[in-house]
């Protein structure tokens, strides 16, 4: 199994605008798209990751199958015209695909480099894939990606130095409101990112956090964490009259707050400024809100640009983190190569054992009565001859002195020992 068979296709916040990503984000959960993915011809294993910043598909393809022709159209569906695929899509294979996944898991490819959420999202995605879509290679790859992420986190300062979305949000809020004391925060939807932002704002001493959630029970749980209160989604308009900072992250497929909803609210607020942070994909808030007076709306892409400003401090840590990723990519490659060699090694051993067995069976009856001890000694001797004889070929197979010779090695051994029909 040469490593070229791992293929990765994806779009992320760097290549694709939010408006397009919104259309690609899965709203129906992982199961259905995963099963469609595995059912694609030539697809042995599959993994799918969908977050608000990226959609990534990893497949292990059968040899000689042109995945380029089918996976992109799976990914984009009807959202994008085929001519435009290349504009948004990146695709990697083999080592590059592994490297990319490790970069993503280690949060080096994130909108906010070093944020820890992405690892949780990959684990969640893997939980769905592991029930059937992922096979031996992807299982190993994903587990490896978790350990790479952990290594990067413990060996570099990238996580602690992470300037998060919530940090950017706080910066902006301060430029709008000055001090954040006695400001009221309203969370719409109970996403992880919203939680983080709210936590950061609590740290700035905001007066109150209210949580409006579709399921009140979840809202209550979250609200309790911030010693705030939970409100029903129907009360949203009323809450908007009071709130100063609104963080929206619902999973709604449509805009939940329109420009026209907000006009009367602004009158009721007597034009008190309000800061909207929309971290949902698809977007929750009408982009035109930003054009209203005293309303400031930032969506996830805008925050990205804000974060871009203070990125340089993390560059150094990112370099050492990248080194870890490179290292681990190489290790994974070795494992994969090992995987490719394994069947041949096993065949070699089997062949040796079979010969020993056959020769013993032929010789033993001729030797007449032998004690159990003598019999054991003979068996041991033949096994030792066999393994000593196989030692050099096995060493040759396992040696990883040069890349890209694995296939050639396998071929030589198979030819020399006459395995060509047994394995391909």
């Amino acid at each position, binding site marked *: 199994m040469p490593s070229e068979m791992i293929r990765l296709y994806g779009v992320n916040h760097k290549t694709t605008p939010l408006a397009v990503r919104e259309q690609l984000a899965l709203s129906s959960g992982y199961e259905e798209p995963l099963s469609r993915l595995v059912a694609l011809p030539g697809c042995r294993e599959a993994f799918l990751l969908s977050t608000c910043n990226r959609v990534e598909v990893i497949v292990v393809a059968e040899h000689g199958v042109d995945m380029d022709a089918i996976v992109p159209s799976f990914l984009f569906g009807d959202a994008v015209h085929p001519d435009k695929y290349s504009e948004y899509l990146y695709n990697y294979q083999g080592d590059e695909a592994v490297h990319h996944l490790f970069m993503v898991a280690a949060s080096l490819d994130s909108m906010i480099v070093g944020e820890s959420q992405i690892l949780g999202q990959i684990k969640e995605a893997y939980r769905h894939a592991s029930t059937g879509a992922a096979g031996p290679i992807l299982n190993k790859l994903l587990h490896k990606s978790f350990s790479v992420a952990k290594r990067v986190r413990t060996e570099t300062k990238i996580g602690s130095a992470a300037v998060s979305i919530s940090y950017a949000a706080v910066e902006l809020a301060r*430029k709008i*409101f000055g001090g954040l004391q006695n400001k009221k925060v309203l969370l719409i939807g109970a996403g992880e990112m919203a939680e983080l932002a709210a936590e950061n704002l609590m740290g700035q001493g905001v007066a109150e956090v209210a949580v409006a959630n579709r399921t009140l029970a979840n809202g209550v749980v979250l609200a309790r964490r911030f010693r705030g209160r939970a409100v029903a989604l129907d009360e949203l308009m009323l809450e908007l009259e009071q709130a100063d900072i609104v963080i929206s992250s619902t999973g709604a497929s449509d805009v939940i707050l329109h420009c026209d909803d907000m006009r009367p609210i602004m009158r009721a607020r007597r034009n008190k400024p309000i800061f909207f942070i929309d971290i949902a994909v698809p977007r929750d808030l009408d982009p035109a809100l930003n054009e209203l*007076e005293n309303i400031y709306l930032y969506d996830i892409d805008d925050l990205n640009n804000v974060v871009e400003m203070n990125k340089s401090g993390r560059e150094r840590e990112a370099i050492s983190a990248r080194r870890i990723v490179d290292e681990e990519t190489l290790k994974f490659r070795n494992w994969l190569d090992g995987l490719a060699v394994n069947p041949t090694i096993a065949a070699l051993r089997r062949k040796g054992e079979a010969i020993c067995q056959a020769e013993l069976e032929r010789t033993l009856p001729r030797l007449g009565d032998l004690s159990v001890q003598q019999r054991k000694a003979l068996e041991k001797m033949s096994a030792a001859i066999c393994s000593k004889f196989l030692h050099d070929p096995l060493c040759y197979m396992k040696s990883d002195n040069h890349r890209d010779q694995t296939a050639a090695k396998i071929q030589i051994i198979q030819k020399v020992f006459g395995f060509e029909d047994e394995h391909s």
Partner: protein
Amino acid sequence: MIGEISYLLFQLVLAASFLSAAAYVVFFISRREQVRTIARTILLLSGLLQTAYILSRYFLAGYTPITSQHEAVVFFAWSVTWAYLSFRWRYTVKNFGTFVSILVVLLLLVAALVSREVAPLPPALQSWWLPVHASVAVLSYGFLALAFCGGFMYLIQEWELKSKRLGYFFVRLPSLDSLDQLNRHCLTIGFVFLTLGIITGSLWARQAWGAYWQWDPKETWSLITWLLYAAQMHQRLTVGWRGRRAAIMAIVGFLSVLFTLWGVTFLLGGAHSYAQ
């Protein structure tokens, strides 16, 4: 003798205010705290020198030096400077000094370019109302000028936030809220003084000309200015006009102030025209 001291003082005022503006600009660019301390000290010095210069003019002329173009503008700069320094005493608004000190320099440059001749006071203006009316009016201009600077800064910062291009000014300018408060604070004080200025002027007019109001161009334009500010105060109190609109109104109002100060004199004439 006094004439020479007075001349020298004006040169010093120009130099000091120019230096303070330059230091404030350096602070604006470099954001180094020590530079700001230096800039503030020089601005305070400039304020003191301006006071000294106005006193010297008083002794030179023998009446409140606010009747010629030059004197009025110096008085204007003086009131902006001291309005700022008094404001500073209560609030800090990041980098506000930069904008104010530049405005002060611009005003003083105008003062430097017009005639500094000391003219005899026309009989109509020989009254104790002159210092009262004129200084109240010019004080109001000082605070309205601060509101103008604040409004200007607000518009820049708001543009940065709305356009989401958080660049050079974003980090250097204060929060929108503090600029809005500044606007409210300065407009309230400025408006009170402006009202007083109009009332004192009207009383003086009754005494001097026998009528409270005679639609002299300056009076008319003062009234227009007053109405502009009154409208804004009203809107702020009733429907909560603030932010961008308040900032624009502060700028429009100040342009009207400038027109009342200069435009009327040059274009329309009337009883308030300065001695040329």
